[in-house]
């Protein structure tokens, strides 16, 4: 019983960072109607930058958030301005392929520089855990969950209260009305891409605490991001949080009852089911 409970708690904790990692994908889709396959590139860059800052300067992954958040914003806005924006009137598949190309370039450059070996980042507290009643809870997972929830909270406040947040929602909801109200739609696109990429890169920082660092990191978690976003409803923050937690729990239960090898199959199955059910939803 205590084992099962441990698994549930651990699944919930990982699920929060799944939600955090996925939200940027939903935000960018909502505002620009673009499926950002470069999301995988930003996730991977996030883990590598964090790993490198730790290896070279001994920087704690949580401190490296101060680098990955602004760097992600800058790189994301740059990709939007220099590439995506030029294709704004082309069919969606064009941007899809372009961003896939960005991801391939980043992945292969990382192979070139760091090679394909799995690396891991170990801090003083990486293996710590503490007892909560009968449960042993991993400390890094709790820290990562707290940071993810804080990130979500800040973002929710931004979207609800700040002019910039309202502008993001306005462009997502009705581009024409936003434009007629004097909102600079082009600039909002760049900001949305910047925020989405900052979320992905900083998610990489957080996740470096318990996942290995490889150029394929983005591939594995892009798929999970899709799963969360489709299940949670694209731009719906509450829905994405619930979906992230659901995926985290489902994965850990699968690993617990069947085999850890099946963990990554869960997101495939959930993604397919979510797409089929959503399709039935919308008729």
């Amino acid at each position, binding site marked *: 019983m205590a084992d099962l409970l441990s698994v549930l708690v651990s699944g919930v904790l990982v699920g929060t960072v799944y939600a955090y990692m996925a939200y940027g994908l939903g935000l960018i889709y909502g505002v620009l109607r673009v499926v950002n396959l470069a999301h995988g590139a930003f996730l991977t860059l996030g883990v590598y930058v964090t790993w490198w800052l730790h290896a070279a300067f001994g920087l704690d992954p949580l401190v490296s958030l101060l680098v990955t958040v602004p760097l992600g914003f800058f790189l994301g806005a740059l990709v939007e301005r220099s590439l995506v924006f030029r294709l704004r009137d082309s069919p969606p598949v064009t941007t899809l392929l372009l961003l896939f190309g960005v991801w391939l370039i980043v992945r292969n450059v990382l192979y070139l520089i760091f090679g394909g070996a799995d690396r891991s980042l170990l801090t003083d507290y990486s293996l710590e855990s503490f007892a909560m009643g009968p449960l042993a809870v991993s400390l890094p997972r709790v820290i990562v969950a707290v940071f993810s929830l804080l990130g979500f909270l800040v973002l929710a406040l931004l979207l609800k209260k700040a002019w910039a947040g309202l502008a993001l929602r306005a462009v997502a909801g009705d581009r024409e009305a936003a434009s*007629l109200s*004097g909102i600079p739609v082009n600039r909002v696109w760049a900001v949305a891409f910047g925020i989405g990429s900052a979320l992905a890169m900083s998610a990489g920082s957080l996740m470096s605490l318990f996942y290995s660092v490889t150029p394929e990191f983005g591939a594995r978690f892009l798929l999970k991001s899709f799963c969360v976003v489709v299940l949670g409803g694209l731009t719906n923050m509450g829905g994405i949080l619930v979906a992230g937690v659901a995926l985290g729990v489902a994965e850990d239960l699968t690993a617990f009852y069947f085999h850890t090898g099946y963990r990554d199959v869960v997101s495939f199955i959930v993604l397919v089911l979510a797409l089929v059910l959503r399709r039935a939803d919308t008729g």
Partner: protein
Amino acid sequence: MSAGPRLELRDLRVRRGGVKALRGVSLHVDAGEIVALVGANGAGKTTLLRAISGVSAPESGEVRFGEQRLHGASPRTVVKAGIAHVPEGSHIWPQMTVRENLRLGAWSRRRARDWEGGLSRIYRLLPRLEERSGQLAGTLSGGERQMAAIGRALMAQPNLLLMDEPSLGLSPQVVDTVFETIHAIRGQGVAVLLVEQNVVRALGAASRGYVLEGGRIVREGPGEALLADPEVRRAYLGRHA
């Protein structure tokens, strides 16, 4: 109240998808005036409003608002210059509250930090919106949506309001409210350029009117004169006359 700037279009030409939608339109709207623009579907009324507000770029011609030349300006510049646009079909944000919708209308004035002052003025003009302020705009009735769209445009504190078919699809009583609101807006010194399919109401409310046909102005004059014009009556009022 000091008179606002005068809108003046000279020989405005606009293409839409390669087709000449406006073939040289000249018109003007004086400060504090209600001007009606009527014409059949496809005559170019909406294109004209979109060209003024900067959504579509004119091919040639001139758009002046007071001293400012707005030809080819972005919608943002046009809003800042004092022209707000209430688009056809209201285009409010259904997933946002009425208050958020109104706040976004004040985007161009966000640095002035007085949008809440503007909000209370809008609530005085359109009290219904205050009752609904916390509600999602998607839950409003058709008339209330139109009011929210008008309120949102007024939040920019314009001197001129462009209105595209504000009475479309509304019941006769609600149409009355919309026209009362238009008069109240004019009463505050804001000029209105009104595009309407309801020719009788529009020309009745307006001090002057223009008839647009095939992308050209074919008639212009005081509202009552146009209403009495046999050509206009035959073309647009067949069923009403």
